[in-house]
Each structure stands twice: as C-alpha cells, then as structure tokens.
C-alpha cells in the first residue's frame, strides 16, 4: 500500500507579519518556520495507518525552497518512509490551483492508495488544495476528517460539521482525505527516529517539471487589517457601559 502525505512549511503564526516590497505577500524576513499545524495531523495519520496495516510505504511531499527540508525531516522523524521535495522558490506566489497541479502531476502515475493533506494551511487558509488534487486525479475525497479507519480496500471517516455533529462516510480507495485538527495526537519524534530520519531518502525534484497549469487568479494587494482599536476604554455607569459595549460589538464584530 502506498501513502502520500502533502506537507506545507508555514510561518509560525506568532511571527510579526509585514508586507513585502511588492505589496502582494508577507515579507519572509524575521519569520520562524514550522510544519503547517493541520499537516501534523495528516503526517500522524499516515504513520498510524502504517502502524495498523503494516505493509505501507509513506511518502511525504513538500513544495518550496531548500528550507522546507528542515520541516520534512520532522515528518520523516515522525515515521514517514521517504521524502520528495519539489524545489520551487516561488511557492508563496502560487495559488492553490497551481499547488494542486504540481502535486497531481507528481502523483498521477505513482498509484497512491491514500493521499493525506491538511484541511487547510495556516497562512493561506483556502482549504482547496487537497480537494483539487482529488478532482485532478479523479479519485474520491473527503475533507475535514476527525476520525479515520483505513483498510486495504476502503476507508471509513467522520467529517466534522458545525455544532459538534459528525457525518460518517465510507469511500473506496484510492481516496484523498483532508485532516482537521484533533484527528489524532501528533507524536513528538523520538531521538532514535530523529537519527534514522537523517538517513532516509529525501529526493529533490525541480519544480518546473511539475508545474503545468496557470493560476486562475491574482493577488492584487495584501494589507494589514485596520489596527485593533488600541483598546477603547469604557468607564462610568454600568447601564450606559453595557449599551456602549453592545454598540461597539455590533459595529466591530459579526457576532451580534
């Protein structure tokens, strides 16, 4: 059985974000990089399936500059068998459609039984890539899974809906699954596995070989949303305070 996990390296969300010179993306300076949180769950799920079914080979794929290899090592240390790094320094300018195109182009003739991706990335947050890959490969796909039970024939998952309800769905393999937070408990790599990961195959392939589609939209501008009010301070009579606060909540938030 062959598994593919698609993993993205993203900036830590605690970083100070600034707009780059072009005004269309965030500046890459002063950012700390990490594995997309959702992808940690997909990597863990792949390793769990491998541990459950035994004869499973897990490939982790990531697109980006050489720097993504650091994060791929973590996926290998968590238990993926091999890594494929698709070298593309301009990964940040790529729309989800292009990213999906690259992945599908790589995966199309490899015969993966299960493809796992995060439900979305922490930076772009479009939630498109996984499902687009499945459409491109013409295989079944289920998004936002919070439980997963896989056999060599099919996979039974629970999709997370709003309000805590889950929809239980079964699909035949091959299938693509996008993973929601809480699907499992991503492991902390053990030291022997970190050592082993250093010796695992990590293949770098040129990005241009796989990018065969054109983007379908462009970013016109990126900007930092209006600064938080810097703390409106409300003081005085409780009754008036409550009215003022409700007015502010109506104006500034979408919840009232």
């Amino acid at each position: 059985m062959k598994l593919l996990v698609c993993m993205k390296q993203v900036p830590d969300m605690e970083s100070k974000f600034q707009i780059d010179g072009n005004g269309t993306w965030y500046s890459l300076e002063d950012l700390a990089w990490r594995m997309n949180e959702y992808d940690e769950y997909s990597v863990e799920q792949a390793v769990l399936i491998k541990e459950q079914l035994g004869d499973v080979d897990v490939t982790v794929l990531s697109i980006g500059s050489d720097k993504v290899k650091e994060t791929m090592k973590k996926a290998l240390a968590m238990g993926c068998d091999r890594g494929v790094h698709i070298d593309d320094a301009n990964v940040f300018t790529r729309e989800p459609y292009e990213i999906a195109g690259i992945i599908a182009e790589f995966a199309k003739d490899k015969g993966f039984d299960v493809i796992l991706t995060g439900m979305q990335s922490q930076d772009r947050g479009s939630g498109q890539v996984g499902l687009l890959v499945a459409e491109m490969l013409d295989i079944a796909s289920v998004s936002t899974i919070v439980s997963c039970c896989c056999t060599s024939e099919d996979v039974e998952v629970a999709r997370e809906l709003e309000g805590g309800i889950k929809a239980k769905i079964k699909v035949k393999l091959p299938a693509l699954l996008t993973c929601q937070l809480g699907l499992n408990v991503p492991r902390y790599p053990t030291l022997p596995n970190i050592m082993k990961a250093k010796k695992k195959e990590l293949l770098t392939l040129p990005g241009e070989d796989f990018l065969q589609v054109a983007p379908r939209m462009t970013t016109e501008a990126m900007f930092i949303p209006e600064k938080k009010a810097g703390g409106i301070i409300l003081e005085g009579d409780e009754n008036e305070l409550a009215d003022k606060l409700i007015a502010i909540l109506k104006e500034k938030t979408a919840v009232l």
Partner: protein
Amino acid sequence: MEASREIYWNVGHGIVTLLPMYLLAVFGLACMAIGLLKRIKVYKTGLPMNRKDQPGKRLLCTLQTALLQKRVTSPLLPGLFHGLFFWSFLILFIGTALIVLQADFTDLFWDIKFLEGSFYKLFSLVLDLAGILAVVLLIALLVRRFVILRHSINEDREQLFMHVLMLLILVTGFLIEGFRMAVTELGTPLASWSPVGLFIATIFSGAKEQSMLLLHKFTWWIHLLLVIGFIAAIPFTKFRHIVTTASNYFFKDLGPKGKLINLDLEDENKETFGAVAVTDLAWKDILDADACTTCERCQDRCPAYNTQKPLSPMQVVSQIGDAAFTKPDQNLIDKIGKDALWSCTTCGACQEICPASIEHVRKIVDLRRSLVLMEGEFPGDEVMTAMEQTEVNGNPLGMGYAGRGDWAADLEVPTLAENPEVDALYFVGCYGSFDKRNIRVAQSFVKLCKAAGIKLAILGKEEKCCGEPMRKMGNEYLYQTLAQENIELIKSYGIKHIVTTCPHCFNTLSKDYADLGLEGVAIDHYTVFLDELIAEGSLDIAADNFSCTYHDSCYLGRHNEIYEPPRSLLQHAGASLVEMERSGSEAFCCSAGGGRIMAEEKLGERINIKRAKMAADLDTGLLVSNCPFCLTMFEDGIKGAELENKLEPKDIAEILVERVKH
C-alpha cells in the same frame, strides 16, 4: 601492682579458647567479605562512571566526613544522636582493637603490654563512658523510632534487629566486665575507673565466686558470638551503611554542583538514550541506593513530597536498589511511576541534606530522558507544546522570536550585532524577554548598569532559550541544539563576560555549557555582579528602610551557594531582612525548577501557594526573589493563596532601581 587486667581472664589462654575464637572471627570476616563482594558485583551491573579521579582529595574528604560525622550532624538533631552513637561505638571499636592488638599480637609474640598503668585507667574509664553513652543513645533511638515516630515493628524488623543486636553486644560487654570485677577488682581503687562495671559488680558482690566465673565465661562467649554475628551481618543488613556510606563519600560527585552529565548524541551506534532499567544507570547509582539509610531527611525536605505528590526521593533511591538486587531487568519507570518522576523540581534539597551524599536528581533526569527521548512522552500536552514552541521560536512561551529584544526598545541597549564593543553581554532569558512582569526586572537591571557606567549589550532576536527547562525535563536533544546555537553565537562575538538575571541561565551557561565548548567566558548572576559594583564604588544605592523576607532560589542558592551577595544588596537598599524558616541551603522551592515552569501542577497542593504562605506568615509584606521563575510562581501563588493584600513579590533589581543614585 600496676593497674591492668588479665585479658582472657577466666576464659583461658589455651588453644581450647583461642582456636574456636579465631575460627569464629575468620568465619565472621569471611561472611562480611563474601557479602560485600556480592554487592560490588551488583554495582558493576551499572554503566561505567569515573569516580576515581583525585584519590587523595577523595580519601581526605571521606575521612573528614565519616569520622567527624559532618554530613550526619546537619541538622543537629537527630544528627547528633547518630554522631554521638557513632563516636562512642568508634571508641569501643578502637578499644577492642587495642585489646586484640595486645593480646593476640604484641603480648603473644613480643611480651609487650601497653594496657597498663595510667593509660589503662584512662582506657577503662573512656570505654565505660562510651559504652554507657551508646546504651543510652540506643534506647533513645529505639524509643524515637518505635514510640515517638510510631514506626510499625512489622515493617521495621531489620531496624529493630539491628538496634537490639547492638544493645545486646553492649549489655553483654558490661556484664562480662561486671562479673569479672566482682571477682577480681571489687574493693580495689582500680574498680572506680570502670564505674559501670563497678555498678554491676556491686549488684553481684554477694554471689558465689564459682557462679560468677561460670556466668562470666558463658556471657563472654555470647558476647563474642554476638560480635561475630554483627560483623557477618554487615553486608546483609543496613549495618552495611558503615561500609557503603563511607564508600559513597569517597566516590561522591566532586562537582561542579548542579551540573548534569552530557549525553553523547553524536554516537551513531547508540540506540537507547536515558535510563529505563537499572543497567542503564551508572554503578554509582546502585551504590547510592546501597548507601541509603532511609533516614527520610530528603523526603522531609522535598517540595513535591511535602505537597502530597507521589514523589519521595528516598523511595526512588530505594526502588533503584531494590531493582538492582532483585530484578535488574525491571522497568524502573513503571516501578517508580511517571507521576513521581515528573513531580521533581530538581531543587536539590534532597542532595543537599543527604547524610550519605546520594545524588537523587541525576537519576530522575536520566529516567526522564528515556521517557522524552525514547517515547516522546511528557507530563502533559502543555509541556510538549512548550517544547515545540521552543523548537520553532526559541522560547517555551511561543512568542515570535523576532520580538525577543523589544523589551529594551526604549533603553538604548545595543545588540551585539550593532555594537560588540561592550563591557558585558546581558543574557536576558525567555521570561526577562517576553513576560511582562519579568521585563520590568530586566529593565531595572539595565538601568542599574547604566547608573554604574557599565556598557551592556544583548543578543536580541539572536538569543535563544538556554535550554535549561527542556534539559531538566529530559529533552537533552533540544537542550543541546539550543546550547550549541547559543555557544556558537557567543563565541562568534568573542564576548568575555556574560551577566544573567535568571539563575537557571546562570547555572546552565556557567556549568553545563562548558561540556559543549563554552570556555574562557566569565559568567555572573546579576546579584554577584551588582554587589561587586557597589563594593568597588561604581554603583551607589541610597538606603531607604523597608522590611522584607528573601527567597533563596534553588539555582542561585543550593546549586551555586550564592547566599550572601543578594542579602548584601538588600542591606545596601536598607532592608531589615526577616528570614523564613526554610531559607539558605534549606530553602523551599517555588515549584518552577526541573522544567516544571512549563508544566501544570495537577497533583496535590500547589507548591508556590505553600511557599507564599510561609513568606506571608512573617508579615513583612514583601517577598524578594532573584529568579524570574520564582517571581512568576509567587505572583501566581500569592493570588492562589489570596494574599494579595498581605504580600507583594519583587525582584532585588526592582528594589535597587528604586533607590539608585545617579
């Protein structure tokens, strides 16, 4: 006639007496030797560890510690009981040895007798007094153990056996003396030099000589058998501590104090890290267990044990010993329990007080290393998150690394990248850099240096966590990664003097980093640094009277024995210092050591609340500390104990900066 007595009186000098006696002696010594060798074999199942360097120093230290009972007599009670008993028993041992020396060697071969005349009188008196003291102490110790402390006889059979055996040896000894004196010395001036013997002899003064002789002979053999039994029993009972504890002094950790052993992570062939079984620990760890007398002093001082957590340092040591001598393959982590292992704050109170010089903390960290490095386990998800955040941003708080120097924005402190020509590097640490409360401390320290004309620089966003909390939690890999990056950075700037405000950074940089190649850099904790600045007149503090109590952080106090400079700083500031009961080397941890700063305290009472209450009881209104972890814990603990109106926590730097003269 010169004062003396006939050795082997009544029992006979002939082969009938001596042969069985010598055979018994050989038997007793052989039992002891075989027993001890067997134990040594078990010690050797542990991993190698070099504890034979500087043998001269070690020997001297052992003699001092053992003969003067230096470690035992602190605290004075009940240490003094043991000390006095030890000394009286030592005197009796020397006395007996002198008798053997004369009777079986000097007199036998060369007709030389030295137990004569005034020396004999003194000898008799001293031995009698030592003997009676030992009897009184033994009875007192028995009463303490079984009546006052209410130990169950069933669970403490060995102790009962040991006490009673010694008591019988002493009592039979006095009886022999009494019976002999009733026949030979009663009514002579010499008798008064053996007051206890005289007392017994007087009781039996009316008895027939024949029955006295018979009783004497019988008691003499009983006494001999008891002594042989004692010697033979040494390896098989807690009597072995006479040998093992003394050996433990010889093989003790010569320091530096509070430093952990570096784990070799470069070794490609190594497949296991940390300890799971006894065989993963060092031989010294097994000897430690054998040297333990289960005196409970460690447990009495352990902050975890004192707040109803499942950790007793004594129990950990005993369990290691138990495994080593019964089931060496046993999983120690299961035996001791993960909750117990995670509860340790590495405060070192156990090691500080241990009369047998046992190293508890290293064992716990070794077992934690296995949990973290081999299983990827932590005491809770929050700790794993902190580890991951440290991997990404270089601090356990998960703050963006680029903002690490932001706290100093208005203070005109350059980074080393901006200006490497400074007097000292201020290694700020994570809490000083990111925690609002501790940023005030960092800023105070910088202002004090400015007032003293010291040019400081920081590393800013280049600085990473020193790795201490991760290391103590068992994550040696993350620690070494962080340490190597920091060391490379410090070396690249060629800086020669580093000051820290965090005792954890201080301890790590000054001791642990040496193993990873940080050399030739002077590292100071700010309390020592500022105290020197005041002494040399560069820093001028105007005393303004106030009252406070002072908390010795574990890593400045016990681990580095810096007790005076912080107090001296407080004196300069005008403090009338009221000491807590548990202060100095006996200070009670704030709960944040051992990486516990990253963990939630879910078991038992909260340690920081307990400590806050101790401080509040003194009614000074102010709890002064020297450590960002302590300050954080006290802020929390004071709220938890609802003492906000009674007690305020502050750092020394904050107190000084309020009084600095420009």
